[in-house]
């Protein structure tokens, strides 16, 4: 009898392990190089404040968002896949956050200031969520912000000058309410996990 109970216990352990394995499986098609979904910076990284132009054409300084967690994504509006995918996922993160979303800002920083005018950003970001913030600026400003966050971007011109693509880092950067960089989350991470990461810095 005791033996049988032990076997049942073993079976229970196996089931629990199988279910746990399920939970960590990133169901989406995104890459899964890192075992942990998201890199927590401990200690958090100091990042410089910056000022760019928002989608209303007005000057916007990141520290205006102090007191809120900020999700930063670097992309460009002509990007056909990872940028719209990430902004769609931001919508889901916002839903997951529920009431906590009031203390979170979602920011899209253009790495294509030449084409991404404030008007274009307004149409683009607005198509996802009017509360999302779109920022653009000149190449020098964007370059120094990117360097601070460890973001790579490079224009690839191949057909004609108008049709260039931009290679860029596709991670999401989570800045804490105190203004320091707290978490870096890889592209394609499940919005539920992103929401958990964000809640943890609130």
């Amino acid at each position, binding site marked *: 009898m005791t033996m049988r109970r032990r076997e049942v216990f073993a079976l229970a352990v196996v089931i629990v392990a199988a279910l746990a394995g399920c939970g960590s499986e990133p169901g989406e098609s995104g890459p899964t190089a890192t075992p942990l979904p998201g890199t927590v910076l401990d200690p958090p990284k100091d990042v410089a404040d910056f000022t760019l132009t928002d989608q209303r054409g007005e000057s916007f300084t990141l520290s205006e968002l102090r007191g809120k967690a900020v999700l930063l994504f670097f992309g460009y509006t002509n990007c056909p*896949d990872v940028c*719209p995918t990430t902004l769609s996922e931001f919508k889901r993160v916002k839903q997951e956050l529920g009431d906590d979303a009031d203390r979170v800002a979602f920011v899209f920083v253009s790495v294509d200031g030449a084409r991404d005018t404030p008007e274009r950003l307004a149409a683009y970001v607005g198509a996802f969520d009017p509360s999302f913030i779109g920022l653009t600026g000149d190449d020098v400003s964007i370059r120094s912000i990117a360097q601070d966050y460890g973001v790579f971007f490079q224009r690839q011109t191949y057909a004609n000058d108008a049709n260039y693509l931009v290679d860029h880092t596709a991670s999401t950067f989570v800045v804490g309410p105190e203004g320091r960089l707290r978490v870096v989350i890889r592209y394609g991470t499940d919005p539920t996990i992103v929401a958990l990461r964000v809640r943890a810095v609130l």
Partner: protein
Amino acid sequence: MIAHRRWIAAPLAALVLVVLVIGLAACSNDDDNGDTPDAPADDAGGMQVNDAWVRATVPQMADDGSGELAGDDAMDSDMAMASGQTTGAFMTLANHSDTDERLIAASVPANVATTVEIHETTLDENDVMRMRPVDGVIVPADGNLVLKPGAFHIMLLDVQQDLNAGDTVPLTLTFESGLTLDVMADVRPLE
């Protein structure tokens, strides 16, 4: 005693196996959300296309309708914006033949976009997204090729008009074998 234990362990092991298989099956039911194939759409020479769609373009600023001649600067920026507009087309290609088919080109009417290319998006270990034109992509014999965000896809460059959700874009696919296939792709919202 020992024999008795073995006798219990064998069915238990089988049960464990069954539970694991069910558990893993439950795990994998979540891939490719939103990609549920519609009714099989376009079919030719053993090649079938399902679930073809194009991402809506970023809405252009509404024309003020004045028809007034803008200054040179404004004209230039308008033209640059119109000519730089790009978007992607995505679908699942199913090759029911026993030979590989290589997709080498795609086209759309010139009033939709003037340049169409096959591209591949890759993400490296540093999470850097890169997109490059490719000469072609193989649809394996008795296999599928999924053109999707973050992987192989068809790029529409120099898009000539706003593509809005609900529109339909006719696409012609050309394969190395000479096979061509006309596909109607639904425009889905930008988001």
